[in-house]
């Protein structure tokens, strides 16, 4: 049996223009890595949107896997600006192999 450990997976939906705000916060929390995935369209309180990179209204999801304490630090860091920047943050427990790297 391989050994798995539990880590937090955090996903943050953000405007592409504000991506650096998110990754800066991830680095401040001492997390070593992240990945950015694209979003095509969506709907929220401000209505529908679709990918229109021509007007800079596109969005991405930043995903990062981290130890519990660092994950909470990231969440704490971003909580006050979530509404201002329109971020959506969700997190849950995942099992990973090679846990020492996260």
């Amino acid at each position: 049996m391989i050994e798995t450990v539990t880590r937090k997976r955090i996903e943050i939906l953000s405007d592409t223009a504000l991506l650096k705000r998110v990754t800066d916060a991830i680095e401040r929390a001492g997390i070593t890595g992240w990945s950015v995935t694209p979003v095509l369209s969506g709907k929220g309180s401000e209505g529908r949107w679709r990918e229109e990179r021509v007007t800079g209204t596109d969005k991405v999801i930043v995903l990062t896997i981290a130890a519990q304490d660092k994950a909470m630090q990231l969440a704490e860091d971003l909580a006050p600006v979530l509404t201002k920047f329109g971020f959506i943050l969700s997190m849950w427990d995942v099992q990973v192999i090679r846990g020492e790297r996260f």
Partner: protein
Amino acid sequence: MDPTVIQTFTSPVILFFLLGIFAAVVRSDLAIPEAIAKGLSLYLMAAIGLKGGLAVSKSGIDGTVIAALLAGTFAGFVIPIFAFLLLKGFGRLDRINSGAVAAHYGSISVVTFVTAVEILGAQAREPAGFMVAVMAAMEAPAILSGLMLARGFGKSGEAGDPKTGEMLREVLTNSSIVLLLGAFAIGLAGGERGFAEVSPFFEAGFKGVLCFFLLDMGLIAARRIMDSRAITWRLASIAIVLPLINGAAGTALGVAIGLDTGSAAALGVLCASASYIAVPAAMRLALPEADPGIYLTMSLSITFPFNVVVNIGLISAFAAYLTGSGVPTL
């Protein structure tokens, strides 16, 4: 009415724009892939930059060029102030949103300029090559001006907001400025001979690419206003009145500093146009509280079509009137 106003409507460039609007209105699924749209816009900027640089390599730089650059920069700083007052007063917007919208109207739209160059060219009123440099000079000042208005002049923004220096660096290195001025410099350096090599690509394809790009802009502009909720009749009126006033003032300024008819009209178009690429990106970063549903819808869905379809023709006629060059026979 100047016949050139009507003539606009038989240009394929404008007809493709109207086709885009039509497709959006009938809820067609027509869409230009976004990578293609981005590619086309890079092409247009490189082509217009090269062309401008080549023109200046022939004509040289003189006092008029300096005057035009100064006039453009001045307009970029001043238009937002006037726009801000109108938006806060008549428009009933709050300070943040007024500043954000004002920045859009002080800055410029490359595609509006390119379309104007096409239309003016077809009227034998081709603007001077250096107007491309004026356009580049007008992109940034309004962003600074608008930000100061939005934040109140004294205050320095909340903690966590980007510093003005950082903002400035980002604005000056944004892709459209770098590509426009870079291609301008290449056109200047390469001159006629260098341009000959690449002209089949950059010149022959230009109008067709513009058709496609405006098809896409028509789709995007119309879809956005159809989904929009944030626009009042007051804001819609401002999105028409501002380009009229700014266009007339800019044209008059151009004539006053001694520009030829086409170049004065081009300065008018630059003043009349509102940014919908560079400035929204900057505002999202610097003023995330401002509502893109307001500034994008005004600049992209109202002012842009108004300029392309109506105002460029008006400005051209006004420039001809002021310089006394009359109505061209076609």
